[in-house]
């Protein structure tokens, strides 16, 4: 059987991303979006000033890239197989490739902006 190298690569991103999402995403959503609504936080971190102040921290930059990359590649891979599960046996690979491309572009942009842009 021909090794399916690309899937193997994306599977690794997916697996790593799964851990990242499991560890970081819930708290991230609470901090930046849902915390105030839920009454857990008083300060709204999603304003321009709050966010800008925050993302200047080098550790935060790393955090951002890891979270965004992990979530997108994890999500894209699994999303692709949801499409398979729903019966898109012929097209799920193509749609999946599209999802990976978006994930790659978004992660790259985030990294560029985080590291050199802000």
């Amino acid at each position, binding site marked *: *059987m*021909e*090794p*399916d*190298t690309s899937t*193997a690569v994306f599977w690794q991103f997916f697996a790593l991303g799964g851990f990242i999402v499991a560890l970081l995403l819930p708290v991230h959503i609470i901090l930046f979006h849902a915390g105030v609504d839920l009454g857990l936080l008083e300060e709204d971190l999603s304003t321009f000033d709050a966010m800008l102040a925050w993302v200047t921290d080098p550790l935060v930059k790393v955090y951002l890239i890891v979270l965004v990359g992990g979530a997108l590649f994890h999500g894209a891979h699994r999303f692709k*197989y949801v499409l*398979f*599960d729903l019966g898109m*046996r012929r097209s799920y690979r193509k749609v999946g490739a599209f999802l990976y491309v978006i994930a790659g572009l978004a992660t790259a942009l985030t990294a560029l902006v985080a590291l050199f842009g802000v």
Partner: protein
Amino acid sequence: MADEIILRVTRYRPEQSPLPFHEDFAVPFRNDMMVLDALAYVKDHMDGSLAFRWSCRMGICGSCGASVEGTPRLTCSTFLHEIRKPIVRVGPLGHFPVIKDLVVDMDDFMRKLQQVMPWIIRESEKPLERGEYSQLPEQVELYRQQSLCINCMICYAGCPVYGLEPEFIGPAALALAYRYNVDTRDHGSKERLARLIGRTGLWECTYVGECSVVCPKNVDPAGAIQRLKAPGAIQAIQILLPPILRR
């Protein structure tokens, strides 16, 4: 419970009708009766044409898998009284072509078993006179669970991925590959893994986990497949490396 139970069997007799149909059989009920006993009763006393496979009637030969109330089970170890219904539906294992009544076509499964090279591969063989390969009990423990598969194919009937993509190697065969790959006597894990990392291999498994739930022998194919994925990914990716870095 009533002293009679209705067995609603999904039948398929290609020489009689091109379509499957249901047939009800009223079977005398005993509390210690397995679904298989009821099928045997029908065959012996009501309709000899009912076709199903069975042999050991003690849950080890793997012949008698069928869909009982929509769940793949060994009929020899499923009590009728477990079902708690006056009408019990029995049909062939899902995801396989049906030959007749409860008898399904196993060819694909047999091919897949062979495909994963389920035998010990060694670089050099020790002569028999020099005795056994030493193996500590905890080394046996590494593969013991996956060596308990009875090839009943119930995991394939439970696996939606196999249902959607019949080319998928599937739970039992992959678990068997794992069983040999972690055996300390074996040197063939790379060769075996090479057969699992293609399009229809490991990556198709999305860890639904149903195979391990329905497995009557607690083999946990789902866990085994996940454990193959990391070494599988590494091996698949080596092709991207310059030759000198490949192992």
